[in-house]
């Protein structure tokens, strides 16, 4: 509730303002002529000409939308504000007070100063304190002797790395990153099947270290993984070491300063690391999916801490991963893939596209095991130097895909159980067939990496298709 102003004249001032100092003697004159209440924002001894009420906590200033000091307000007998002026203008002050002699020795005009209640360094905290933030999330008070960072570990909120304390002010700031309402339900998160709101995602995004502008990407990623097709529950529960990895397309990649170049899958870029981490913290804290609980990965992967990387769209004439998946060019989108971490593919000598494609196929054939066919999807990420072989030769994405897939046919005679002294393999009745290593639509292709290095990468997946996980692409909306 807004605390009322007293009837009569009301002034808001601060000592740290030359214009307030200029009008100090006038306030004394005004106070002698009619009821005057002065609120001081920074110093109880200011102004000198009249005693002031303490507004150092800025409560009155905040509630009455004081943006400039001095502000002079006329309040009616009913407590309703009638008129206000800001700064110093002799004509204005004379007209406002009806005193045509007021301030004749002062300069005609001086602009006011910023009110402390709108100081950028204080406004978030004030909005949180005064605004009745409207945030529905339960508050947790840490004890005096608790260290904030240890307290968050102790409560089991962390993935193992330090978290940013999700204070109300930080969460409110995070929510500025989206136009969606805080109570908007984004998805139902497995394994506990809990509805997650924009606000709760924002809390976890703060902890992960995201900037507010990353929030729409995190929200889209949550939407993508909490679908029946993506099946985040199965991905958690499997003993295979896969996690959600995200590819970002569209202009937002550059607006967020994401890194699609040197060390694209590695450390060093805040957005690449914290977007995926925020998603995993939502899965952990809201969905309840924790290692050793529903997450049963035998070995796991560092990629499970959180990895969202952008495709290098500018460095290739090829259409992007998102475009190939039906998103219009120039539209922001995120693709969620259920995959393990990246694995190198090395070919430093091929100069023809055919030779390089042979190498890529030979390596892709061994993902998970040479004896695994049609069971898993994969994401192939071509580096710029490998991409150059195809661009120089005039191959587009469609040509590359068809040439590569033609080389990814497996002769089942080579992988029947017991062949080559290996017990793993296909049952004998599959002998004599040609099967694709990846099911149709199961091989995803993207472009990223630094300018030098004749290396590409493959991220191999988990059980593919309707019984496992299917890649899901969502548009990123504000």
């Amino acid at each position, binding site marked *: 509730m807004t605390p009322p102003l007293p009837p009569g004249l009301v002034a808001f001032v601060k000592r740290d303002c030359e214009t307030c100092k200029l009008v100090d003697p006038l306030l004394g004159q005004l106070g002698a002529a009619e009821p005057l209440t002065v609120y001081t924002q920074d110093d109880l001894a200011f102004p000198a000409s009249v005693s002031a009420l303490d507004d150092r906590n800025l409560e009155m200033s905040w509630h009455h939308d004081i943006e400039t000091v001095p502000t002079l307000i006329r309040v009616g007998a009913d407590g309703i504000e009638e008129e206000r002026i800001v700064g110093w203008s002799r004509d204005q002050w004379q007209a406002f007070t009806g005193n045509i002699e007021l301030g004749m020795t002062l300069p005609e005009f001086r602009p006011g100063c910023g009110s402390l209640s709108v100081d950028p360094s204080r406004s978030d905290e004030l909005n949180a304190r005064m605004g009745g933030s409207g945030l529905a999330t339960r508050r947790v*008070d840490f004890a005096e002797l608790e260290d904030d960072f240890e307290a968050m570990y102790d409560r089991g909120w962390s993935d193992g790395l330090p978290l940013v304390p999700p204070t109300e002010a930080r969460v409110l700031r995070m929510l500025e990153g989206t136009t969606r309402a805080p109570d908007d339900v984004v998805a139902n998160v497995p394994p506990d099947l*809990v509805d997650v709101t924009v606000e709760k995602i924002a809390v976890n995004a703060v*902890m992960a270290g995201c900037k507010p502008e990353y929030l729409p990407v995190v929200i889209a990623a949550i939407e993508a993984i909490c679908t029946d097709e993506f099946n985040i529950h199965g991905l958690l529960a499997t003993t295979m070491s896969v996690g959600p990895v995200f590819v970002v397309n569209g202009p937002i990649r550059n607006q967020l300063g994401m890194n699609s170049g040197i060390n694209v899958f590695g450390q060093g870029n805040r957005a690449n690391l914290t977007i995926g981490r925020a998603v995993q913290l939502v899965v952990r804290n809201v969905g309840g999916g924790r290692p050793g609980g529903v997450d049963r990965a035998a070995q796991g992967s560092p990629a499970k801490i959180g990895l969202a990387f952008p495709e290098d769209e500018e460095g290739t004439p090829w259409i992007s991963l998102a475009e190939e998946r039906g998103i219009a060019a120039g539209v922001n989108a995120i693709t969620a893939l259920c995959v393990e971490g990246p694995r190198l593919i090395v070919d430093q000598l091929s100069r023809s596209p055919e030779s390089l494609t042979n190498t890529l196929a030979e390596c892709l054939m061994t993902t998970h095991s040479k004896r695994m066919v049609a069971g898993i999807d994969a994401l192939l990420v071509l580096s710029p130097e490998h991409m150059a072989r195809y661009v120089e030769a005039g191959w587009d994405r469609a040509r590359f895909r068809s040439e590569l897939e033609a080389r990814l046919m497996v002769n089942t005679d080579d992988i029947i159980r017991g062949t080559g002294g290996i017990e793993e393999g296909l049952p004998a009745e599959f002998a004599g067939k040609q099967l694709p290593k990846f099911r149709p639509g199961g091989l995803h292709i993207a472009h990223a990496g630094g300018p030098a290095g004749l290396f590409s990468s493959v991220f191999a997946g988990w059980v593919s298709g309707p019984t496992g996980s299917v890649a899901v692409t969502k548009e990123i909306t504000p």
Partner: protein
Amino acid sequence: MTTVLDPTNESTPATIERARRPASLAGLTVGLLDISKPRGNVFLDRVEQRLVSLGSTVKRYKKPTFTKPAPVDLRHQIAIECDAVIEALAD
């Protein structure tokens, strides 16, 4: 005091529950923490006699200074070595 927003699905209590209180101290290892106030040792010596007569094993610990919380290492040591702890709070 820092107040934060709960990142979880809020299905568990926000406060941390106290450790369960043992029904009896017999057979348990009890830590006696001297906070380094004068004559705290006199008090704890007597408590130790009483506990031993109850069948407890007693381990003695001492804070470097009563003016500050016990160092985290000391708290950790007590937590792993003892079933219960008694702290002598005042002079």
